[in-house]
């Protein structure tokens, strides 16, 4: 089948792409649009390294076709910092040592960003459940949980 023309908003910018129907959104973001922040970890939607925000929901971009993103509003880690200012979740991950190798981090950040909109004042238990679609191999999660708590406090204070 011929390539299809799709347009969507990526980090506030209108973008377009020509894609084969079978192309996965994660590949188009990374290889056509060169937004390599979101990563590929498992390809079976278990690890969450490819998590981005589509129309105000967290989505695993490895299990979505690019054609399905036509008309969508997408936020990826590259668009998280606004006007040169780190987002509170980004700063909190640095402050609480919530990352090591950095590979899961963009997915973690995007999920934390959306999770704190869904639940601005979570308990630790809420965080564990709300972030359970993202695997991290390095941190043992303890500092990620702290980072989400810190980000929650920062966002509440803002």
């Amino acid at each position, binding site marked *: 089948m011929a390539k299809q023309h799709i347009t969507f908003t990526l980090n506030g910018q209108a973008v377009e792409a020509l894609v084969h129907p079978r192309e996965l959104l994660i590949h188009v973001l990374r290889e056509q649009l060169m937004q390599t922040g979101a990563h590929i970890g498992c*390809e079976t939607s278990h690890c969450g390294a490819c998590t981005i925000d589509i129309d105000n929901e967290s989505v695993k971009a490895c299990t979505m076709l690019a*054609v*399905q993103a036509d008309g969508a509003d997408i936020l990826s880690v590259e668009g998280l910092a606004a006007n040169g200012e780190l987002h509170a979740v980004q700063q909190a991950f640095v402050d609480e040592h919530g990352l090591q190798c950095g590979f899961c981090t963009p997915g973690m950040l995007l999920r934390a960003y959306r999770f704190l909109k869904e639940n601005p004042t979570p308990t630790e238990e809420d965080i564990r459940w709300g972030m*359970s679609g993202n695997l991290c191999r390095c941190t043992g999660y303890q500092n990620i949980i702290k980072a989400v708590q810190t980000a929650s406090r920062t966002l509440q204070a803002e």
Partner: protein
Amino acid sequence: MIPGVFDYHAPTTMADAIALLAQYGDEAKVLAGGHSLLPMMKLRFAEPAYLIDLNKINELRGISEANGMVRIGAMTTENQLIASDLLAQKCPLIPEAARLVADPQVRNRGTIGGDIAHGDPGNDHPAVMLAVGASFVLAGPAGERTVAADGFFLGTYWTGLEEGEILKEILVPPVTASTGHGYAKLKRKTGDYATAGAAVQLTLNGDVCDSINIGLTNVGACAIKATEAEDVLRGQVITEALILTAAEKAMAMTDPAEDLRGDVEYKTHMAGEMCRRALRQALARAKGGA
């Protein structure tokens, strides 16, 4: 893990979707949330030549109540089920089970209709549908028909959907004040299929169990309605001893396959244990407890 080549269609009406499905026949596959089908396509177990994406069909979404039934559009996502006040009041077992499906991201894409129609014995909603006494509106070239959940699940990847049909909506009778529900799911970790699961919905008349449905997840070729366990409890004052007997009956009805989650013996026992837990929870709730 790269899917094979296919043609993609994203109809905006059911009529178009059904026409496309009729046109392409079994070369086509219907795409709902995609979290079962796309991984199968990436592994090249599934290689449909045509993919008919239902995500743009608005009439498949939404939860409403009419004519004494709660109607759930097949493309309603798990998180929409969880967020629904109507379901929380009228069909609380459904959102409770939805919380245990996969993980937050997957629940944003995964749909109740996809979960039911895929026919995977590991999916959670089939057993829940058996427990709540749901029926399904199936739309096809010859029009619509409504079938009961009980009898719809026939085997692995095998349901009562006929060629050319699409699951359109789920109809659920609302619960009453004396209805209790419970879903117990044992899994290895977040995101996994159940090692065994049990969904229970029962209604009390005074102390007596007036009606009861028990559905079992992932302990057979498809979701199992544990009718023999139900028979033990229906019309009875449910006691702990009866719960144990019912669980034994439920265990006898299972036919699990060994995999990395467990062998037949373990899964059978876990079906019993999940049954006991769901029954106890449903009973407590029916009596007005948590």
